[in-house]
């Protein structure tokens, strides 16, 4: 069965610090990968996605993620966080050819000015 692990449950950073959130999945076949973000009081929004091609994908608001197939990982990065990045971040996976999304447990990011 597919599963997604997010290692960091709660991350606290100061503004301008660099961010890397880990995401690992377990599935032997071809996958599509997503990062979603949920800002306080708002609904889930798609941050970025990987379907195929360049394993380094860029999303909105300066975020990027790198798909490393050999490590079954899709870590999210941002070189310099802002207070407005305070949110919950979810990694999600689905097997190509299916519509079912499997979510990780989420990482709560707090950025202090």
């Amino acid at each position, binding site marked *: 069965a597919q599963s997604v692990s997010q290692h960091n449950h709660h991350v606290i950073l100061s503004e301008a610090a660099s961010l890397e959130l880990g995401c690992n999945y377990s599935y032997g076949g071809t996958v*599509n990968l997503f990062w979603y973000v949920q800002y306080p009081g708002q609904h889930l929004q798609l941050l970025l996605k990987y379907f195929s091609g360049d394993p380094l994908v860029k999303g909105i608001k300066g975020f990027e993620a790198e798909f490393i197939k050999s490590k079954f990982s899709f870590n999210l990065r941002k070189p310099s966080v802002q207070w407005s990045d305070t949110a919950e971040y979810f990694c999600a996976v689905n097997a190509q050819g299916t519509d079912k999304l499997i979510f990780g447990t989420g990482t709560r990011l707090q950025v202090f000015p």
Partner: protein
Amino acid sequence: SAVISQKPSRDICQRGTSLTIQCQVDSQVTMMFWYRQQPGQSLTLIATANQGSEATYESGFVIDKFPISRPNLTFSTLTVSNMSPEDSSIYLCSAGEPNRGSSEQYFGPGTRLTVT
């Protein structure tokens, strides 16, 4: 991207009663889904709402407890039946379009349900 609304946004219900949650999409979409997010946990797919046929339920979820309707390509309802406190959760609707063998999904704001 699709814009999704849900009603109600929150409710407090008594044990043994039922609540129907509505999900409206601003455009026709192929796929609609219902998720549950229990306190402190991640999103779990309840079912795929199929237009014109019965919903497809995930393991651990049954039609008698979570009946779903999808009368057209923009609307779906989820009913939480015979509620117990364990059903207290956020219920989310999402919509997706097949894209290169996958479905990119957009989410509604959720319905926060508390069962007393």
